[in-house]
């Protein structure tokens, strides 16, 4: 086929189906936009983290890093004196709350003499050494701020400002600006000794930036330095920071990407049904082309090109939409739509061209694949027959159960395929196969269902039943569209609902105390000292307090980070955490007990009874795994240990949070007020009751999934619009049949009702099959995809009301769409319609 002819044909076919084509494009665009936006948000966040890390690391080629709460600064001399080390720069790092604002400022304590050899930007344009100015380089209260930090705090050089510290507010003075570090985000740089002193971190550092000698053998140097480090402290490359963050957000991305794939899949089906109907309508046209010498292959290529064009349109629009949306979301909510993983400046916008191109191509490929599926039967087109015949239909779907059952078996088997790396490929494969099985089951299932409908005397019902039961190809394509969109929507709804109900129940168990005090809702500079803890315990009406201490570290023999939760552990707490077994073991002479989260089981391969070694406070501490607990807040893994064991091992008496149990007869309001006054002495600390925290956690959950809900609604609306337009096209092509029915004495109303009945029947079949396969998909999502990417277990909970509304809406809209389409088709006179065929 030559190009001008192809162009003419394409123009004709696309403009003749403008609305359906647009819908198909919109659906592809939606999928591409969503996937593109998620990818861009994530790429931007990682880019910002990466650039900030590089900027602050300067010429450092390695970093020594330890647990989140730091490690002993005695390790510094050993590292700095290693013969392979050219420059070693110690860093104390914390996030200090800004009084009166719900935010924290990152504070870096450095040794300017050493840091400046790696990153000259740490020294404020030589101001410290200028004649006439008071040299503040080593002043204990001097802080140098990046311009973005000064803007956030509303201060300028020379101004005083305050930050929250563990012993009250720390009053500082802006000694100068650090414009060279502005891309590192809001940041205050101080002398390392001053930060240790003012923020209660004497003896602790968090990082050592290193530059190795060019002539030192790397491997030996790294081994040598690592050997000089205390347990739990490791030497890494600076760019591994971004990779670790990537690990933290994996689960979140998987969720949104699954959603994007769902939109793409639905879009593919719309493309299929659009092109299928067109192909059917244009059988004569195609037959003519064949008669004129076009080969079957040429015809298929032409249709595939048409599909690819629709896909390309969708991909282009979707990419543009995705970029615009991610840009807007970045400005409005930050990198993660407010989920709280990142705390950057949000001014890095770094779309990844390669990923966006891949996503766009996926959109094009989906549409082209759908088109190719349409063209298969065309190869068998009987040219002579088709030239004469204006009868419209696609080949009927296969009628047997063999294929759908085989696909379903494949779906079941795929669910047990282990994940590849961190990606649950088996789960996704299983979902794809389950959907395919549902689509292939449309034919046999509709026959099965309609056989159960008793034959009726009413001619309309009989007609409708016969029409649907014989299930011509076009109806089958339409029902398949309904099945897929209902299945995916129902699956997402069931999964999100299951998660929400499980989270709700877990929160009720975990928040077993009456009140909770948090030392640092923002940042980590503030902790509860033993004195503050004692003051809380001494408030009249308080039965007991459970101090909670967090630490983040890398367990021995592993690479990933996990969170240590140290708090008093008893049977009640374990039940709240849904631990298995739900009771602490008897105290023996062996290592202390630890409970590991489901994520730890998946990521570190730990089992009950096993001994694990955690580097606590620079020492190897052995624990015996007593059981597994559920943790819906940390996908990277957590270990629960008894506070008494933790304190005995570390000597660390501080607390990040306090769970407060009131005496049974206490006057809650009075006690809460008294506690509030005690907590208020710690800057930035907050006191809340359990129900407030519970409600807030659920609100955050709902906000995170708000995007999911909105996109689901859009996807199903587009799918239903596609179904309605399919009916319209179908009704148009059945004018002759309607004319005959009118001649036989049916009124227009009755013809319209006939179509409504057909539509409802198709809707019911599609909805029932869709719900069944959607349930299967949700089981895979909950037990395979979620388990492998979020690493936590939950039970299936059906959102009955939502599902019922969904099904009712689908059936009603199918009936409505069909009758509207029918009304338009029978508007013309019956005589004319019959003549039309002559």
């Amino acid at each position: 086929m030559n190009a001008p002819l192809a162009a003419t044909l394409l123009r004709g076919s696309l403009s003749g189906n403008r609305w359906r084509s647009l819908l198909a494009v919109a659906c592809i665009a939606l999928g591409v936009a969503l996937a593109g936006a998620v990818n861009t948000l994530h790429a931007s966040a990682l880019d910002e983290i990466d650039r900030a890390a590089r900027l602050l690391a300067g010429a450092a080629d390695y970093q020594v890093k330890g647990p989140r709460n730091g490690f002993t600064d005695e390790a510094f001399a050993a590292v700095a004196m290693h013969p392979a080390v050219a420059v070693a720069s110690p860093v104390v790092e914390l996030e200090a709350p800004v009084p009166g604002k719900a935010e924290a400022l990152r504070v870096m304590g450095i040794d300017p003499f050493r840091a400046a050899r790696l990153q000259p930007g740490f020294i404020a344009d030589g101001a410290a050494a200028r004649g006439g100015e008071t040299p503040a380089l080593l002043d204990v209260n001097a802080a140098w701020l990046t311009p973005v930090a000064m803007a956030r705090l509303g201060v300028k050089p020379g101004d005083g400002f305050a930050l929250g510290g563990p012993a009250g507010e720390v009053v500082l003075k802006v000694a100068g600006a650090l414009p060279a570090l502005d891309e590192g985000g809001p940041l205050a740089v101080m002398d390392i000794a001053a930060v240790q002193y003012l923020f209660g971190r004497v003896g602790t550092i968090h990082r050592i930036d290193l530059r190795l000698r060019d002539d030192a053998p790397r491997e030996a140097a790294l081994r040598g330095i690592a050997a000089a480090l205390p347990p739990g402290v490791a030497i890494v490359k600076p760019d591994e920071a971004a990779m670790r963050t990537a690990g933290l957000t994996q689960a979140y991305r998987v969720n949104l990407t699954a959603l994007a794939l769902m939109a793409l899949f639905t879009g593919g089906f719309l493309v299929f049904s659009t092109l299928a109907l067109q192909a059917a309508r244009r059988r004569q046209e195609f037959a003519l082309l064949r008669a004129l010498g076009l080969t079957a292959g040429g015809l298929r290529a032409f249709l595939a090109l048409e599909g690819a064009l629709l896909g390309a349109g969708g991909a282009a629009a979707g990419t543009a939409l995705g970029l615009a949306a991610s840009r807007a979301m970045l400005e409005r909510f930050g990198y993660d739509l407010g989920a709280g993983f990142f705390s950057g400046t949000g001014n890095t916008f770094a779309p990844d061209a390669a990923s966006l191109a891949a996503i766009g191509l996926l959109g094009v490929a989906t549409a082209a694949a759908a088109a190719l599926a349409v063209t298969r039967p065309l190869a068998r087109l009987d040219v002579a027959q088709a030239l004469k015949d204006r009868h419209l239909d696609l080949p009927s779907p296969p009628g047997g159960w063999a294929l759908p059952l085989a696909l379903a078996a494949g779906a079941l088997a795929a669910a047990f395929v282990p994940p590849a790396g961190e990606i649950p490929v088996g789960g996704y494969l299983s979902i794809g196969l389950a959907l395919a099985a549902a689509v292939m089951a449309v034919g046999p299932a509709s026959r099965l269902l309609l056989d159960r409908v008793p034959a009726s005397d009413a001619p309309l019902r009989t007609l409708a039943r016969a029409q649907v039961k014989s299930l011509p190809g076009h109806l089958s394509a339409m029902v398949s569209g309904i099945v897929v969109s209902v299945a995916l929507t129902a699956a997402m709804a069931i999964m999100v609902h299951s998660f929400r109900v499980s989270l709700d129940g877990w929160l009720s168990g975990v928040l077993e105390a009456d009140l909770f005090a948090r030392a640092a809702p923002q940042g980590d500079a503030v902790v509860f000292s033993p004195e503050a803890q004692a003051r809380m315990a001494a408030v009249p009406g308080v039965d007991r307090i459970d101090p909670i201490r967090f630490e983040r570290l890398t367990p021995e023999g592993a690479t990933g980070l996990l969170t240590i939760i140290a708090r008093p552990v008893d049977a009640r707490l374990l039940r709240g955490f849904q631990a298995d077994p739900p009771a602490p073991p008897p105290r023996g002479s062996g290592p202390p007990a630890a409970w590991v989260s489901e994520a730890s089981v998946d990521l570190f391969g730990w089992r009950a009874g096993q001994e694990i070694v955690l580097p606590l406070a620079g020492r190897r501490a052995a624990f015996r795994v007593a059981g597994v607990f559920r943790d819906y807040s940390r996908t990277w893994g957590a270990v629960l240990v008894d506070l008494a064991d933790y304190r005995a091992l570390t000597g660390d008496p501080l607390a990040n949070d306090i769970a407060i149990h009131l005496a049974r007869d206490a006057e809650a309001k009075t006690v809460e007020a008294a506690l509030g006054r005690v907590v208020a002495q710690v800057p930035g600390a907050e006191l809340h009751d359990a129900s407030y925290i519970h409600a807030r956690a659920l609100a955050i959950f709902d906000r995170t999934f708000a995007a999911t809900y909105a996109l689901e609604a859009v996807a199903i609306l587009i799918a239903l619009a596609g179904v309605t337009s399919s009916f319209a096209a179908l009704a148009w092509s059945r004018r002759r049949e309607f004319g005959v029915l009118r001649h036989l004495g049916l009124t227009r109303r009755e013809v319209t009702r006939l179509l409504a009945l057909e539509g409802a029947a198709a809707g019911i079949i599609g909805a029932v099959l869709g719900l069944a396969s959607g349930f299967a998909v949700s089981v895979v999502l909950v037990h395979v995809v979620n388990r492998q990417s979020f690493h936590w277990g939950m039970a299936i909970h059906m959102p009955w009301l939502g599902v019922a509304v969904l099904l009712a809406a689908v059936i009603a809209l199918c009936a409505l769409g069909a009758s509207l389409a029918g009304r338009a088709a029978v508007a013309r006179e019956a005589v004319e319609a019959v003549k039309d065929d002559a």
Partner: protein
Amino acid sequence: MRRAALLLALLAVALAARASDFAPVLPGLKLAFPRDFGAHPEHRIEWWYATGHLETPRGPMGFQVTFFRLRNKAADPNPSRFAPTQLLFAHAALADPSHGKLRHDQRIARAFPGLAEARTGDTDVFIDDWSFRRDDGRYRARIAGEAFSLDLVLAPTQPLLPQGEGGYSRKGPLPSQASGYYSEPHLAVTGVVKVDGQPLEAKGSAWLDHEWSSEILADNAVGWDWVGANLEGGGALMAFRLRDKAGATVWASATLRRDGRTRVFTKDEVRFAPRRTWRSPRTGATWPVEMGLEIAGEPWVATPMMDDQEMDARSSTGTLYWEGAVTVAGPGGAKGRGYLELTGYSERLRF
């Protein structure tokens, strides 16, 4: 009395406190060794300052190795291991005529156990892999710079030279305006100089100053002139004066070792009389680069090896000074090689 000029920015930090906060150097000071080879941490400032000449396969070279210690009392309340209670500064330079340019490098650090310290008891001062230590009666200087490195042994060939009254070197009208000060002239140097990745065997001679003080400048002094030289035949000459704004001498002193005998000259016996000035085309400052001296009526003269030995460190430490190699000539054909230092000719040194 030597090149503290480099340090003024840090000095200003350390000297934010009053002089009376530090242990004063007082008349009657008795040097005691090896104790006084080591650091004097309760005094405000201290330095070990070696300068010398080397013969290498590439020809003659000049070198300078300096370690400063500064006490910062403001950091005393801070219990942190990183608290900058003592600051250390090291500077090294290598003058290599075949290279045409002065190579130099420096290190600054706060004292940190094991990493940067000025230890008491004997000479042992170091910042990372830069060190100056006394061991078995000899000094060893190890400098690992970016463009060059030095590993030199400096061995005494004669008794050390206490300055002033047995090591008590008066700097102004008040008795507390003084330093503890001794020199080691005619140190025999052997070792290795590494330039462009190439190790060179080196031999030569050097001069070492070790000085500590809490109050180094009188209130009305704006700068100083200092000269120190190894004389042929084992003699040594050191002379300094502090000037006021008008250029008049606030305080002066000289020490001359000749024929094995050492004599100290007081303020009234020492006169500085510039013989020729040089105006820097870069900074516009005028330096008395050829300095005439009259010590107890005898004329001496220090002649620069070259005029342009101005050090402009205003962008880094905020100071401008002249420091360079000179030849010294004196009565009876006395000849020697040494260093001349001129400070405070562009503005008052900020103390």
